[in-house]
């Protein structure tokens, strides 16, 4: 075998590069070259399979795509990509990718379809409509909804154009409550990657956060590190999640009662004087009011709400205190649950403050990024209105755009928004129960542009679809995330864009030039911008094309120095246990527990989450990942299966009280779920026929979420107050 391989190399080198790799040997047996025996090259990138943005190298063998592996110098990945990152080539090779620009046309019989268009025609059409909207209503009436790093090129275009309205579902459908809750308390959010210092934590508390099922790479790796060091992990989850199975304590809580438990923990810490009194005195304000406030949340009272034994509440609180300040009450990420989510996040923030973990080793560290100069460009015009026009005074602490509010403000003839650009986010499967409003908005809007790599459901709503090339075929902005120390990473084209797809920067520049915004796009190729920026920090594009990641030393400490004075970015300059800001707006200044709605007879809590093989619905058509997880399953407890007469492996549908019935989903009978709940991974049940692998596979949780609990503080769409009943497929 080894001999054959050596023979083969000689042969192929004679045949020259680019020859098909299947030479015939004597006897007609085909050779079986070992992986990597050919001409191997590697190109740096950072991943776009999720938002974690891990840096790695893409390997090609004899010019053909081979594999992707992490970059050892990268803080986000420590040289190891996750399941999805490793499968990144599946996105590049997906045969269902968008290939050419598409324009909506109405046929003679009145039916609307797409026809392929040239870039010139598609961009010309968009330019004409954007100009018309600007003339009739103003440039600010054109909004953007986006997800992903490539959106930056379009944010730049929008701001140059005079629009002040953009929103990411990452705020109101995901991280918003958490970041608002922490900002209200500490004056700062958590960032992404989060500032959690788990590699040094001695105690970690996960509140419904199923790290390991979500593969946020750095989170998984640092939590694994904590397990390796035998740190005490306490997991609160109604489901026996992957981290629950590896925790010293698993608290199988009644769904929706987490806030009661958090208040009971504060009660114990204060009652037993286990909190960090020096830290609390030095850095916080409102402690006396907090003590009074939590006095009534005794473990005995909270037991009745949560089902967690009082003694277990006390023991776990003592464990937290014993390891403090190297104790992390994990802030989570997807935190839009029950509509009181900012308050629950506040409770998590306050608990961290009582333990003195913010700014301390093993708790929440101080991030630092590279001071990277912006490419010199003229200032943006001041937009006539901002994203706040979408929700008015409703959500006073929404410091970012609320995506669902922008859609609602696009409905009707007198709607504020007249045009919408959607970049990289599949809205019907992203915002709970949004489909009716989305349909109405799309009817009203004068222009809907969708930029995507795949024919996701949202493309069906567009007037114009622009096919972007994948992350493996383009430059994007340098990655410069706040991290343990400053670092930069480069994304660059590994391959030429397939078909007629184009990089986002190219589309933004072309549109910019057509719209008369040339001065905002004074480059031919985006690599010029990157090179200029890199040269300001002593590197260059050429250097980064070799190394992919460049690390810089820290310029300030990662943790507070013992006893140092700290000015927090809150109105009081202190950590605000009692929030005057909230009180002034008529909200509870300290978190209050409200009992969650209970399912009607015959209904179950619809519990949902992630699976490690997929990033929402974004990767389900990737052939490598599809093979690993082709559909989601409905987790049901054996008691439920027996009561409903359903068996493991059979298909059922779910119905909600509003009459919405899901696509079919396969039953998985497991003890890992409570009998009052069912669970499914989010991201399946695609209806787009053009996604040929994933079309019709599994069910979509988001369409069942018609009971949305809106967080009045920041507009988040709470998704966990939904109930479903099981409908047998053949009944």
């Amino acid at each position, binding site marked *: *075998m080894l001999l*054959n391989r050596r023979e083969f190399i000689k042969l192929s080198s004679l045949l020259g590069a680019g020859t098909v790799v299947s030479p015939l040997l004597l006897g007609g*047996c*085909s050779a*079986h070259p*070992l*992986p*990597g*025996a050919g001409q191997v090259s590697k190109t740096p990138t950072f991943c776009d399979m999720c938002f974690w943005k891990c840096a790695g190298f893409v390997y090609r063998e004899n010019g053909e795509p*081979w*594999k*992707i*592996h*992490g970059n050892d110098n990268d803080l986000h990945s420590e040289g*190891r*990509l*996750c*399941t999805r990152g*490793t*499968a990144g*080539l599946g996105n590049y090779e997906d045969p269902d990718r968008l290939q050419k620009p598409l324009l909506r046309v109405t046929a003679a019989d009145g039916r609307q379809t797409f026809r392929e268009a040239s870039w010139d025609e598609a961009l010309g059409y968009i330019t004409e409509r954007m100009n018309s909207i600007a003339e009739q209503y103003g440039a600010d009436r054109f909004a953007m909804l986006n997800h992903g790093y490539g959106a930056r090129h379009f944010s730049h275009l929008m701001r140059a154009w005079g629009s002040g309205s953009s929103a990411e579902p990452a705020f109101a459908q995901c991280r918003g409550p958490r970041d608002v809750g922490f900002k209200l308390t500490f004056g700062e959010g958590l960032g992404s990657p989060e500032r959690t210092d788990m590699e040094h934590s001695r105690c970690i508390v996960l509140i419904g956060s199923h790290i*390991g*099922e979500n*593969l946020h*790479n750095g989170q*998984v*790796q640092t939590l*694994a590190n904590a*397990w*390796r060091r035998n740190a005490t992990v306490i997991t609160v989850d109604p489901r*026996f999640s*992957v981290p629950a*199975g*590896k925790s010293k304590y*698993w608290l*199988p809580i009644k769904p929706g009662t987490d806030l009661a438990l958090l208040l009971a923990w504060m009660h114990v810490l204060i009652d037993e004087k286990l909190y960090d009194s020096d830290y609390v005195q030095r850095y916080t304000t409102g402690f006396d009011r907090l003590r009074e406030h939590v006095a009534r949340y005794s473990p005995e009272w909270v037991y009745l709400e949560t089902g967690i034994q009082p003694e277990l509440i006390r023991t776990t609180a003592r464990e937290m205190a014993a390891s403090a300040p190297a104790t992390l009450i994990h802030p989570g990420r997807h935190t839009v649950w029950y509509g009181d989510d900012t308050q629950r996040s506040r409770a998590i923030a306050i608990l961290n403050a009582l333990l003195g973990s913010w700014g301390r080793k093993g708790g929440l560290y101080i991030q630092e990024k590279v001071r990277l100069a912006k490419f010199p460009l003229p200032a943006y015009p001041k937009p006539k209105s901002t994203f706040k026009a979408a929700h008015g005074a409703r959500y006073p602490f929404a410091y970012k755009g609320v995506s669902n509010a922008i859609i609602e403000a696009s409905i009707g003839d007198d709607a504020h928004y007249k045009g919408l650009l959607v970049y990289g986010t599949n809205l019907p499967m992203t915002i709970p129960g949004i489909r009716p409003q989305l349909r109405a908005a799309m009817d009203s809007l004068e222009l809907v542009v969708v930029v995507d790599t795949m024919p996701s459901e949202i493309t069906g709503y567009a007037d114009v679809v622009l096919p972007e090339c994948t992350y493996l075929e383009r430059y994007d902005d340098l990655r410069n995330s706040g991290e343990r120390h400053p670092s930069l990473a480069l994304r660059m084209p590994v391959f030429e864009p397939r078909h007629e797809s184009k990089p986002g920067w190219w589309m933004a520049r072309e549109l910019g030039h057509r719209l008369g915004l040339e001065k905002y796009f004074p480059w031919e190729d985006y690599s010029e911008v990157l090179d200029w920026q890199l040269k300001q920090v002593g590197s260059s594009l050429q250097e980064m094309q070799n190394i992919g990641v460049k690390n810089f030393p820290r310029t300030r400490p990662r943790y507070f120095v013992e006893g140092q004075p700290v000015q927090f970015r809150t109105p009081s300059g202190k950590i605000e246990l009692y929030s005057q800001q909230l009180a002034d707006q008529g909200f509870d200044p300290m978190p209050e527990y409200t009992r969650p709605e209970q399912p009607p007879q015959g209904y179950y809590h619809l519990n949902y989450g992630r699976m*490690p*093989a997929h990033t929402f619905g974004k990767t389900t058509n990737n*052939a*490598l*990942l599809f*093979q*690993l*997880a082709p559909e989601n399953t409905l987790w049901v*407890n054996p008691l439920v299966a027996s009561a409903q007469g359903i068996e493991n492996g059979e298909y059922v549908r779910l119905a909600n009280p509003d009459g919405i019935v899901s696509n079919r989903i396969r039953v998985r009978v*497991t*003890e*890992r*779920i*409570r*009998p009052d709940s069912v669970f499914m991974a989010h991201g399946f049940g695609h209806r787009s026929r053009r996604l040929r692998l994933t079309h019709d596979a599994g069910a979509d949780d988001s369409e069942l979420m018609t009971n949305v609990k809106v967080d009045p503080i920041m507009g988040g769409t709470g998704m966990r107050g939904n109930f479903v009943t099981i409908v047998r497929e053949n009944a």
Partner: protein
Amino acid sequence: MARYAMVIDTLLCIGCGDCVVACKTENKVPEGLNRDWVVEATRGTYPNLTTEFRSERCNHCSHATCVYMCPTGASHHWKDTNIVLVDPNKCTGCKACIAACPYDARLIMHPGGYIDKCTFCHHRVEKGLDPACVSTCPTHCMYFGLLDDPSSEVSELLRTRNYKVLAPETGNQPNVYYLT
């Protein structure tokens, strides 16, 4: 015989399947086939539960029944090690090895007309690298090395931790170890 072992810490494995994808891309495994896979085993009733995840593959047995049963000599131990390989040029696809394998670790059937399986990435081992799955695992729960070397990480782990192998009763002497 030099003995290479893989040691997998089930206390750290999260069942993410990264090892499966890393193997598929590294070894260009055809669509629909896998050389490794992940098993989840849950015991108990709610809420008294344990769950174990195991990344499984060919055990590269020291006494490999597949090698003994192969009529053409295609299945063989590589270079006087325990690493079991199949020579595609000798394999007729008769499937005797599939019947002989206690771990169901052989793929039916590579489109090239032979039985395929995990190679412990011997093409990487030869260069001093870990197998693709080991070098990719995000929780670092997998280890690879020589059992003959008492100072190797794998020897050290088996000396200091509790472990098990799968189906020891077969007498095949498997070389994939699970820390428990």
